[in-house]
């Protein structure tokens, strides 16, 4: 019974620990900044060109002081499409981001390592993120449909950013062609070293009405804020897990020790010192903790893993960190082991012998 009680406490701490660490990993990797330092977009929401930018402005951006490169990118969203012609897909209902970007500018999205080969501009080839490939079971050589047109997958890449890795990348000119549009959604701007990105970005906003910019510093500041909030949230969840699990563990251990009150009274009456009783109970506690810890950790891993598979959650992975297990075992030994053992060693012998 004690093992079950302690194991439940450890399961709670481990399971919640894995989930919160997984959340932290997911958010911090999602917020990884990409190659470009400044992203320029059009914030106007009126007219036929709402949200779009003329391609000619890309060159203007490139020629600005402090800027070493600029690339226009066109983004379209594919909703509920039958992406795979060659096989039956169960991924309907997904919204996929299709990005049109010239092949030589892919580095500005952090795409610099492609398994297979990068598309040529003007071709009907596409490269896909590793996450997209895994979720939709698409591999090199497969065909997929963008805006009703067929594209051939020539490569798969992985940047570590789930936003980028879950997208489809195609040549900008081809995407403009199939969408019958010669504009871009945003301009990625790469600045030189030792340049003040904020000053350049402010200047762009001053020079172009309706243009908004986002610098990588602003992105990391947003990331820091989000991670800060998440840190507080995970701390709260961990604290809750520790309280719930810790109380369960203390309860189980205290019960186990109290059941032996009379035995402890007998040991005291025959001359055992408090220190020897403390050592004995601690030794037993350690064995109990280890057994419960192993059982609890197994369930702490199994329950969320099975849960993720049961609900078909593929874009979230548990965060395995030694910290979680050290925390669970540490709490068990300290609060669940030392405290009850200390209490037991301090029992007055007459009280202990009277205990029923």
């Amino acid at each position, binding site marked *: 019974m004690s093992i079950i009680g302690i194991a439940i406490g450890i399961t709670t701490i481990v399971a919640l620990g894995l989930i919160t660490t997984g959340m932290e990993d997911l958010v911090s990797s999602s917020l990884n900044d990409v190659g470009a330092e400044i992203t320029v977009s059009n914030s106007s929401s009126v007219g036929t060109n709402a949200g779009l930018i003329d391609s000619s402005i890309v060159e203007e951006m490139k020629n600005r002081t402090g800027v070493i490169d600029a690339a226009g990118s066109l983004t379209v969203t594919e909703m509920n499409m039958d992406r795979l012609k060659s096989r039956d897909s169960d991924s309907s209902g997904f919204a996929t981001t299709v990005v049109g970007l010239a092949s030589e500018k892919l580095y500005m999205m952090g795409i610099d390592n492609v398994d297979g080969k990068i598309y040529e501009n003007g071709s009907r080839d596409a490269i896909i993120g590793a996450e997209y490939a895994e979720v939709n079971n698409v591999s090199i050589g497969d065909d997929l449909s963008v805006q009703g047109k067929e594209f051939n997958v020539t490569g798969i890449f992985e940047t570590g950013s789930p936003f980028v890795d879950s997208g489809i990348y195609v040549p900008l000119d081809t995407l403009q062609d199939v969408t019958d549009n010669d504009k871009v959604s945003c301009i990625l701007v790469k600045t030189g070293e030792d340049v003040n990105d904020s000053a350049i970005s402010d200047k762009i906003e001053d020079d172009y009405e309706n243009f908004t910019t986002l610098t990588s510093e602003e992105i990391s500041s947003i990331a820091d804020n989000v991670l800060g909030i998440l840190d507080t949230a995970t701390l709260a969840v961990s604290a809750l897990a520790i309280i719930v699990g810790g109380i369960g563990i203390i309860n189980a251990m205290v019960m186990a020790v109290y059941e032996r009150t009379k*035995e402890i*009274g007998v040991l005291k*009456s025959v*001359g*055992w*010192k408090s220190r020897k009783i403390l050592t004995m109970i601690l030794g037993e506690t350690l064995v109990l903790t280890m057994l419960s810890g192993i059982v609890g950790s197994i369930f702490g891993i199994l329950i969320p893993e099975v849960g993720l598979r049961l609900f078909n959650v593929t874009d979230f992975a548990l965060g395995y960190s030694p910290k979680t297990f050290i925390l669970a075992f540490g709490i068990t030994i300290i609060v669940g082991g030392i405290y009850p053992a200390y209490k037991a060693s301090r029992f007055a*012998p007459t009280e202990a*012998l009277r205990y029923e």
Partner: protein
Amino acid sequence: MDDNQIVNEGAYPDDEYIYNETFIGEDGEEYYYEEPLISLFNVVKEYDKGMVKALNGINLDIFEGEFVSIIGPSGSGKSTLLNMLGALDKPTRGKIFIGGIDLVKEKDLSEFRQEKIGFVFQLHNLIPNLSVFDNVQIPLLPTGMSNKEMKERISEIIRAVGLEDKRNQRPNKLSGGQRQRVAIARALVNNPSIILADEPTGSLDSKTGELILNLLMEMHERYNVTLIIVTHDNGVAALAERTIKIKEGQIIEDKYNY
């Protein structure tokens, strides 16, 4: 000056009271004051901030090798007195000396209990998941005795209480009388000078109770151990050489039976 000193003033042995030294009596015979093994001076035990007085001024000497019964109704304080004698509890006021050791002053009494005292409880208090041998071994574990010596000592004492064939049995396989025999073996294994038995026959039928008392008396004689039994049974009390009657925390009678 605190209450302790006031109550005990003049109650302790003084210089004129020299134990074990001979003197010539009025009849010309040689006498000596035998030093008691146990001496209690104005022992008071209070509970609930003095609201309950379990012992109310006990003065008592018990000599080495005596067989003493302490009798009294429930709540009279006899078990409290036994706990004081066994160094399981300390008095609120007063002094207790056993074998020259001041139990009130002594901070760690576990060593004293281990060397001097053997307890037999009404409900035997054996550890259920240990064998007879292991239960008897418990008091020897903190002594640092060698394994060989320990084994010999335990075997001897198990033989003495007649449980040789049960040494590997667990307590739940034994009868009530056999369990109490194990408890007696456990109480004797460390060669104590005092055996304290709290209602040792209380949970046994009369025939088994008699056998257990006979065994206790036999052990008392064989090992010359001081035997103190707490009971509320007049028949049991009468078997002792000396009977001390307690009522409301005070000794109301102290007599030798033969």
